[in-house]
C-alpha cells in the first residue's frame, strides 16, 4: 500500500507536512465518495489513491460505488457524450432507468450518506442520490470531472435540477463552470506519480517495450497517446510528421490508443488514420488494452517528443503524463492543454499540422533544448499537477465547506 511517506520522496517532505497541518481540523470527519465504478477510468484511479491518503491523514473517508444495469450505463454514457457537446438524444425510458437505479442504490446507501459530514458525488451517474436522502446531516458536493464547456442544453437542463440540491460543486477548469447559485470550486486534475502509468521504469523495460513494437532506439520517435477520436486530430499528427520527416528523415511516429470500443466513431477514425498512414513503416499505430499502463509509461519515456494535437480537449492528462516523463509537449492550443504547455518553457502550443511540424523540426535539431524544456516540464508538474496537490485542494475545500463562504478562514490554534 502506497503511503504519504512514499509521496514525500517525489513531491517533497514539505508538501506532506503541509497536508498534515491542513488535515488536522478535519480529523475524524466522516467523508463518503460515491461514483459508479471501482476500476477503470480516471475517477476510479483517482479515488483509489485519494481515499486511502485521506484515511492516512486521519479523515474517516469511504468510497462507495453504485450498481446499475446495462441500460443505466447506456444512459450515463449518453450523458457523458451530451455533456461534452456531442449529439446524444436520450429517451424518456432511459431516463426512467437512470432515476430508478439511483432510487434503488439510495435504499442501501441512505443510512451512510445521511450520516456523513461531507458527501462527494462524482459525475452524473449517482447525481440523483441526493433527492433520496432527505435527512442528510452534512454537506453534499457534486464533483464533475467532465468537460462541461459546451453541454447540450436540454440535457444540462435535466441534470441541473439535481445539481441545484447540492451545497457546492467542483469543476476541473473555470471554463467548465456553469451559472449555478451555489459555490463552484475549481480543482484541476492530477496524476499519480507512483502509479504504473507514471512511476519510474527500469531501462530494460523501456527497451523491451520499444522492441515489442518495432521502434528503432537509434532514431527519434514522436508519440501521441490518445483514443482514436477526431478531436484528438490523429490524422493531423500524421500530416505534421510527414512535413517534419522531409527535414528529419529518420523520424518515427507512434500513435497509441485504446483498442476496440463500443464507439462506432472510434472505428471510423481508426480507419481514416490507417488510410492516412498509407503503410508507412515508420508510423506505428498501436491498439493497446485499457490496462496497458506500463506500456504507455514506457512509450512516453522512450519518446523523443510528445504530441497532443487536440483540437478540443478537457484537461489533457496525457499531456501531464508526458511532461512528467521530462518530455516537451507539442500540444493543441485548446482547453486544459493551455494550462500545461507553456510556450518555450514546457513545450509549444500549435493550431495546425504545419505549426506542429515546425516545432518538431525546431526541437529535434536541438537535443539540449529538449533536455532543458523536459527538465522544466517535470518540475512544473511536480509543483502543480501531482495527486498531492489534488489532496491539498480537497482538504482546503473541506475546510471551506465547514467554515462557510467567508473570504478568510482562520483555523483555530490548538
Amino acid at each position, binding site marked *: 500500500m502506497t503511503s504519504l511517506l512514499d509521496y514525500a520522496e517525489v513531491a517533497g517532505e514539505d508538501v506532506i507536512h503541509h497536508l498534515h497541518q491542513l488535515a488536522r481540523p478535519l480529523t475524524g470527519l466522516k467523508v463518503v465518495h460515491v461514483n459508479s465504478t471501482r476500476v477503470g477510468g480516471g475517477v476510479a484511479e483517482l479515488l483509489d489513491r485519494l481515499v486511502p491518503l485521506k484515511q492516512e491523514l486521519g479523515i474517516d473517508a469511504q468510497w462507495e460505488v453504485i450498481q446499475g444495469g446495462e441500460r443505466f450505463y447506456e444512459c450515463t454514457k449518453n450523458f457523458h457524450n451530451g455533456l461534452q457537446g456531442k449529439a446524444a438524444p436520450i429517451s424518456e425510458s432511459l431516463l426512467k432507468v437512470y432515476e430508478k437505479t439511483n432510487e434503488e442504490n439510495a435504499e442501501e446507501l441512505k443510512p451512510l450518506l445521511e450520516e456523513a459530514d461531507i458527501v462527494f458525488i462524482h459525475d452524473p451517474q449517482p447525481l440523483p442520490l441526493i433527492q433520496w436522502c432527505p435527512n442528510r446531516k452534512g454537506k453534499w458536493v457534486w464533483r464533475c470531472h467532465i468537460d462541461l464547456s459546451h453541454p447540450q442544453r436540454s440535457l444540462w437542463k435535466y441534470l441541473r435540477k439535481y445539481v441545484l440540491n447540492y451545497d457546492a460543486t467542483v469543476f476541473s477548469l*473555470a471554463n467548465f463552470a456553469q*451559472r449555478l447559485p451555489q459555490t463552484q*470550486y475549481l480543482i484541476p486534475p492530477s496524476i499519480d506519480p507512483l502509479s504504473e502509468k507514471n512511476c519510474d521504469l527500469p531501462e530494460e523495460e523501456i527497451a523491451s517495450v520499444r522492441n515489442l513494437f518495432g521502434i528503432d532506439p537509434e532514431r527519434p520517435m514522436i508519440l501521441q497517446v490518445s483514443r482514436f477520436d477526431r478531436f484528438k486530430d490523429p490524422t493531423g499528427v500524421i500530416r505534421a510528421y510527414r512535413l517534419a520527416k522531409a527535414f528529419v528523415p529518420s523520424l518515427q511516429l507512434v500513435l497509441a490508443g485504446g483498442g476496440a470500443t463500443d464507439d462506432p466513431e472510434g472505428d471510423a477514425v481508426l480507419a481514416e488514420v490507417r488510410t492516412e498512414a498509407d503503410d508507412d513503416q515508420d508510423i506505428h499505430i498501436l491498439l493497446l488494452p485499457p490496462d496497458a499502463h506500463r506500456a504507455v509509461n514506457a512509450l512516453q519515456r522512450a519518446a523523443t517528443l510528445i504530441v497532443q494535437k487536440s483540437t478540443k480537449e478537457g484537461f489533457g492528462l496525457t499531456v501531464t503524463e508526458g511532461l512528467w516523463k521530462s518530455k516537451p509537449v507539442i500540444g493543441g492550443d485548446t482547453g486544459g492543454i493551455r494550462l500545461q504547455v507553456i510556450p518555450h518553457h514546457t513545450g509549444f502550443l500549435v493550431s495546425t499540422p504545419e505549426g506542429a511540424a515546425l516545432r518538431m523540426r525546431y526541437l529535434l535539431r536541438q537535443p539540449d533544448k529538449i533536455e532543458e524544456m523536459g527538465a522544466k516540464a517535470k518540475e512544473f508538474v511536480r509543483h502543480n499537477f501531482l495527486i498531492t496537490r489534488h489532496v*491539498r*485542494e480537497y482538504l482546503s475545500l473541506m475546510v471551506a465547506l465547514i467554515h462557510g463562504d467567508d473570504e478568510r478562514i482562520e*483555523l483555530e490554534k490548538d
Partner: protein
Amino acid sequence: MPPQESDVGPFVVKDCALVAIATGLTAQNLRELRDHLLAVPLSSVYYHFWGGRLRPVFEDPQYNNDFAIWCHYTVHDDILAERLAVIDPKDFPDSEDLRQEVVDIIDQRIDEIVRPTWVSHDRQFNFIRSQIVVFDARIRIDKPVDLVEAVPNMSLSSIFYHFIDARRRTPGAIDDFRTWLSGFGDAYEATCGALAGVDPYFVTLVELRAQLGELFQLFLGGESA
C-alpha cells in the same frame, strides 16, 4: 529600555491555502471585462493580481496580472496589456481602489478602439474569486536572529501569507515581519527599512523567499544567538 523578546512574544508562523472559486462571470470582450469587473467580489480582483503566486501558472515576467496576460495573449491588445501590467497593486490602499484603476484603464481603451475584439468562448476571461484558509504551522520564532534560519525553510505559502497577504490585513498594510520587529522599538529599524524595499510583485515566491533570507542574513546574521 527597549522591549525584550519576552515582552514581544514569539513570531507565530502561519501557513495558508487558496481555494479557487468560479464566479460564473466571463468576458469575451473588453466591455464585458469592464462590466463584470465592477460586479465581482473584491476577492476576485485580489485573486487576479496575486493568486498566480499560489496556483499552476508559469511565472510571466512580462505581465504580472491576469488582466494584462489576457489582453496580451488573447485579445492581442498590447497597448492595454502594457497599461494594465504597469499597475502595482501595492500602490493602492485597498482592492476597491485597485479595481477602479483597472476599470478606468479599460474604459479609456474602449474609448480609443475603433473595432473591438471579440474572443471565442474557449478563450474567454473567467472571473475567479478565492477563499484563503489560514492555519497554524506550529512553528514559533522566539528571537529576531532566528529569522535567519527560519525564513529559508518556510513553505512558499507561509511566505505568501506573511509577506503578501499581510498587506491587506495589517493596519499599516505592511508585512508581518516588520510588524513583529517593530515591537522591539528601534532596535530593528534598519532591517525594517530594508524589508520595506523588497518588492514582492515582480518576483516569484521562490525568489522572494531567497531575497528575504539574504536580507535577514545580512542584517541579523551577525547577532549572537
